[in-house]
């Protein structure tokens, strides 16, 4: 995060309240925004009585859904920061699920992690060979890898699992021989379970904080911890090391990086292989949930990871937020249909705030539009008990779209992203 010096002087046209929320450094703005959003969700929880909004079980489910998306997005981050568009993330994830299943049923969960990452990395290597060495169009190679991965896993399964005494079949592997251990935070989330007690009191804000913390700290596996740690680690590697600077230089201006002695081809290779292994780790996570490899179990999560990457403006924190939002909305709609209606109230409050804000800026048309939509969503909240299931299941997609359009953020992809770099031709 770039920490620009905070301007003390109030810009013209901003009141003290606006200045409090929007002024100051970027980090302060983001923190305030997050705290504000959390207080709002907590208030909506109390008003609507939908306890599942911030229940620890919802948050745990959200984490379960967000981790594979986040890992795929992180994979995309490494590749695209080095200038290679990776549409093949989903295929690499599929390879990861197969590798995890194959190693996991023979040698246990530790081997599954290694195997899954290795298979994903092989997919990445293939993408690197095609795009970096042979200069194939990145999208063509990525699509080819997705097709290839689907065919390859079926072929390998047919070869190895059809008559396997350990079980399995063309579409699935035998069961993993051991499951990864799950840990909970002692005292707070297990044993005395202090957070659980606090959560059950249903106090405004305090119970919500407890619910979220408990959801994030009880029964998490090693891959989850690894995935969460990888977010700050990726930031540190990419923005705080010489290696990261070189890698990003390859994505912004490879010719300049080359002229300064950066081995551009090698950096791109490394980045895309890391990308593949991270996507593969996402596949391992899915295999751990099911306890087996199953054909098609990625269900397009690699593509959603790619969307989370763009949502997050090609930054680790942003993509984590994107994956988290998608996971939360998905968990909510899977666990409680009525809680989705409570999101209407949340939306109404946000839209009302937008209306007031636009009104103070004398933008009447925008203010009226926002106010009308706020009214509609509020009516929706008051009159609808339960949404039609067909609508509910699109909640994650709709939420992501809405946030994207409301946030009006200025997305900027790496400048040389997706361009084929030939040494000496630039």
């Amino acid at each position, binding site marked *: 995060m770039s920490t620009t010096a905070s301007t003390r002087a109030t810009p013209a046209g901003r009141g003290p309240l606006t200045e409090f929320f929007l002024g100051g450094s970027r980090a302060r703005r983001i923190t305030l925004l997050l705290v504000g959003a959390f207080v709002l969700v907590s208030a909506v929880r109390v008003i609507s009585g939908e306890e599942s909004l911030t229940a620890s079980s919802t948050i745990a489910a959200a984490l379960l*859904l967000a981790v594979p998306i986040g890992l795929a997005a992180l994979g995309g981050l490494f590749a695209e920061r080095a200038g290679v568009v990776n549409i093949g993330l989903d295929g690499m994830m599929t390879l990861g699920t197969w590798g995890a299943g194959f190693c996991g049923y023979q040698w246990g969960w530790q081997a599954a992690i290694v195997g899954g990452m290795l298979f994903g990395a092989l997919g990445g290597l293939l993408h690197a060979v095609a795009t970096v060495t042979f200069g194939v169009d990145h999208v063509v190679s990525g699509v080819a890898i997705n*097709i290839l991965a689907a065919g390859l896993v079926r072929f390998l399964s047919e070869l190895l699992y059809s008559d396997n005494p350990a079980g399995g079949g*063309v579409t699935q592997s035998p069961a993993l021989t051991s499951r990864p251990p799950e840990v909970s935070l002692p005292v707070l989330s297990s044993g005395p379970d202090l957070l659980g007690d606090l959560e059950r009191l249903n106090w405004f804000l305090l119970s919500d904080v407890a619910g979220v913390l408990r959801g994030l700290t009880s029964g998490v596996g090693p891959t989850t911890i690894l995935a969460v740690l990888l977010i700050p680690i990726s930031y540190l590697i990419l923005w705080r090391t010489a290696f990261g600077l070189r890698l990003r230089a390859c994505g912004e201006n490879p010719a300049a990086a080359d002229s300064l002695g950066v081995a551009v081809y090698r950096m791109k290779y490394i980045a895309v292989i890391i990308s593949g292994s991270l996507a593969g780790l996402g596949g391992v996570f899915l295999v751990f949930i099911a306890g087996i490899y199953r054909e098609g179990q990625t269900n397009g999560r690699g593509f959603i990871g790619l969307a989370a990457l763009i949502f997050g403006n090609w930054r680790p924190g942003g993509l984590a937020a994107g994956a988290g939002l998608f996971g939360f909305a998905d968990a909510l709609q*899977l666990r409680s249909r009525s809680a989705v209606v409570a999101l209407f109230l949340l939306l109404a409050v946000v839209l009302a705030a937008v209306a007031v804000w636009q009104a103070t800026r004398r933008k009447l048309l925008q203010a009226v539009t926002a106010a009308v939509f706020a009214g509609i969503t509020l009516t929706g909240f008051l009159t609808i008990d339960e949404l039609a299931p067909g609508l509910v299941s699109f909640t994650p997609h709709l939420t992501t779209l809405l946030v994207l359009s409301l946030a009006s953020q200025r997305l900027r992809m790496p400048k040389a992203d997706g361009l084929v770099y030939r040494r000496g031709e630039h």
Partner: protein
Amino acid sequence: MTKAAALLLAGGLALTACASDEEPAADGGDTGGGAAADAPKIGLAFDTGGEGDRSFNDSAVAGVEAAIEANGGTVAKLSPNDDGSNRADLLTQLADQGYDPIIAVGFAYSDVIGDIAEQYPDVTFAQVDGAVEDAGSPENLTGLLFAEEEGSFLAGVAAATKTEADHVGFVGGVETPLIQKFQAGFEAGVEAVNPDIQVDSQYISPAGDFSGFNDPARGKIVAQGMYDAGADIVYHAAGGSGIGVFQAAAESGGRAIGVDSDQYQTVDDPALQAVIMTSMLKRVDNAVEQFIGNYVEGDVAGGENQRFDLESEGVGLSTSGGFIDDIQDDLDTYREQIISGDIEVPTTP
């Protein structure tokens, strides 16, 4: 450069092709190559997943093999590609090569089998899980349908008898009329035993989005929600997502009921076997065997559906693991009542 891309794509396609048995592999039956001249040349077109799925497709294979044992004949098996877009080609290929009868496995063939049956009026077609009306009612097509609601009713009876929390659940894969039959039967079965028992029913994905049949992670979350809410037995009709339901049961100390095949036998994991109380069996093997038998005897009328229910042993409950042995008498009582018509099981929730 474009050559390399083309090569990569071609490689991918070639591998995909390898994976889906484009060339029909004609297997001689157990009677060997010396089959009688009128022995059937059976064409079998699988649902996605293909042979070795340890469920539906394998059950159809078992039925064909039993029929070959009884009547002689040969079989050719074809699997569709991953997205199932070449289903029509499979049927055409089998018909062109003179296979008769041709059996398509899965309701997804309904979109294409009608046209193909009309193109080949002399070939006898059958579709597992597909009604002839959905395919435009061609004269040479037989729909092999199952009374899923009757089997699910018994699953509901078993769940209601065994529950200690008076709270059970149903997880459906995709909200289609077919899966709603499972839900309707299950809910009716629970209610018949004790109307006060609460049933939570939920689908993983809505109609049109078939991801719900193959997403263990979502299946686990939906089932976990039910166990968290107090349910102790969850019945799933969610195909490949079902393993997620079993995982949730194992973690929550609950129990689960499987579907289609005897999942106690196919799950390969002792920890999960312990939670699979029973499975609602769809005897695709019986249906296929019976259809081929009728064909050999010239008894296939065509243009109509054949329904396999409790009476014809087309559906039922598995007993592996012995978890429901003690309530077998209750189950038999309800079974008799359904067969005699005293209980009418609804097909829509």
